[in-house]
């Protein structure tokens, strides 16, 4: 074969492969959009691969007349609260781990990651028991509260944030903090005026990914809440009942659930590897 022909053939194969992959990747999500736009009657008709009408009731009823609006708000409060807590604690801890030589700091660093690796299925029972039965002040329990989930999510998000930020803070020259300290700045001032601005892009990525991880979480939310602090992910599983499922509404709520993550994708995409491998592999 001529080299030119060979080159365009391999180009063609390349595009065929990626077009197919794109179709396979998008189809399940596309199908969910179709289902969310259909009435019950349309749904049980022959499964058409396109849709011309839009049945907004699938979105409106669960969000405004059912509890899903509140679930959505809960998810938002919990993810944002967890993100703020995690980022603040992680910046302080990372600064300590990066700038000070304290006995056992390596062990602390590695211990944090074991929390991230632990199967949530093994943690859900003790947390459930602690939250619902053991830790109580009078009538007040952590069970079914926003703060309960915010704290529980620290188990996986805090180690992640520390591991991600450690690499970034290590990269900031220590001479900068020394110079500031000679000028009389306190540790807090150094962190706030030097470390935070210089690490800002890394902090933003950490915050964004922490938020998404908290938003997507299901097991803890399902075991540690019942009514008041239910999240949207738990709400999704509630559609599947013994008496049958309202598929249209389920699809609509699934779209609401994945919308923020998809919106963030453009921002996160580039850093997602760093995030998901805790910075072990840098892109």
């Amino acid at each position, binding site marked *: 074969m001529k080299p030119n022909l060979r080159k365009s053939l391999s180009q063609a194969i390349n595009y065929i492969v990626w077009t197919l992959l794109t179709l396979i990747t998008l189809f399940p999500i596309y199908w*969910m959009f179709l289902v969310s736009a259909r009435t019950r009657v349309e749904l049980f008709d022959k499964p058409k691969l396109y849709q011309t009408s839009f049945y907004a009731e699938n979105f409106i009823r669960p969000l405004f007349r059912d509890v899903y609006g509140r679930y959505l708000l809960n998810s938002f409060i919990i993810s944002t609260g967890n993100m703020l807590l995690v980022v603040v604690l992680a910046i302080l801890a990372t600064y300590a781990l990066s700038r000070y030589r304290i006995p056992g700091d390596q062990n602390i660093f590695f211990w944090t990651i074991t929390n991230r690796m632990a199967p949530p299925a093994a943690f859900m029972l003790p947390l459930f028991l602690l939250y619902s039965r053991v830790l109580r002040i009078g009538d007040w329990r952590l069970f079914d509260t926003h703060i309960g989930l915010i704290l529980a999510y620290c188990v996986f998000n805090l*180690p992640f944030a520390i591991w991600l930020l450690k690499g970034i803070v290590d990269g900031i020259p220590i001479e900068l903090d020394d110079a500031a300290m000679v000028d009389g700045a306190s540790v807090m001032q150094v962190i706030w005026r030097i470390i935070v601005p210089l690490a800002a892009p890394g902090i933003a990525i950490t915050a964004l990914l922490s938020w998404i991880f908290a938003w997507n979480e299901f097991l803890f939310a399902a075991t540690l809440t019942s009514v008041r602090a239910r999240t949207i992910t738990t709400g999704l599983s509630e559609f599947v009942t013994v008496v049958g499922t309202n598929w249209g509404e389920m699809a609509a709520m699934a779209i609401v659930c994945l919308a923020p993550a998809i919106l963030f994708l453009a921002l996160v995409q580039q850093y997602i590897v760093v995030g998901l491998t805790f910075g072990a592999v840098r892109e």
Partner: protein
Amino acid sequence: MRSNRTAWGLLAPTLLVLGFAGLLPFFYVVYVGFFDWNVFSKTGDLVWAGANNYRRLVFDTEFLAALKRGIVFTLWTVTLEMVLGMALAQLLMREFKGKSFFRAVHALPLTVAPIAVGATWRLMTIPGLGPLPYYLRRIGIDYNIGRYAGQAFATTVLMDVWHWTPFVTLTLLAGLTALPREPFEQAMVDGANRWQILRHLTLPMLRPVILTALFLRIMDALRIVDEVWMLTGGGPGTATRYVGIHVWRVVFPKTDYGYGSAMSVLLLYFTIVLCWLLLTAITQARRETD
């Protein structure tokens, strides 16, 4: 100026929170594992049981079967994801128009909540409504994951591959881009073919990154719950009741807290051992390649 007291002061909030949300439950679950505790018993009290829960666990065929099922699931998904991910990462090493678009779309499933992944796949596979059973029937295949165990298992594997292959692709791609170019150019000059380069250059040099991806995928696949729970509920029968789902299904409806705790402890123990083995392998590989 840099006193240890300041360092501990900065670490304290983190240690407090992780101690509360990570260590406390860990010690508590170990403690409860030595008791009989059933809410529906007469008193609902904790009764000392010694090692009884663990003795029961070792002979619990359902638990062992779920564990084995989880391992088989992990072997299938992780193998497929590593092979596919490696192939796609190789493809993404070339320059072509629209590359960043394809890469972004490929990464999309990673940001979707596992429970929503389960929901989308359920919508595609439900008989009478989903396109998969409908179009497969037209070509003569009876596809029903509510009825056939093998199909249910295969579908959970496919769903996991859909969800997580991009992770392997992007991780390996990051590793590939960081590799030095000279050895590859030299090999081309020496007339090595693509397969030889992959076998003798790429794979050995990429070993730490491959192991890291492998490690994270194994840990995640073993503890899968949400997606499969949403897709099949662990059925039909027990066909897709992987270990996390088993714990979930046994512990909560039966409120057998002592036994459930023992189960959690064993699961944590397996995880820690596996984690340690894999981390050692990664550090070893990093030291060898550096």
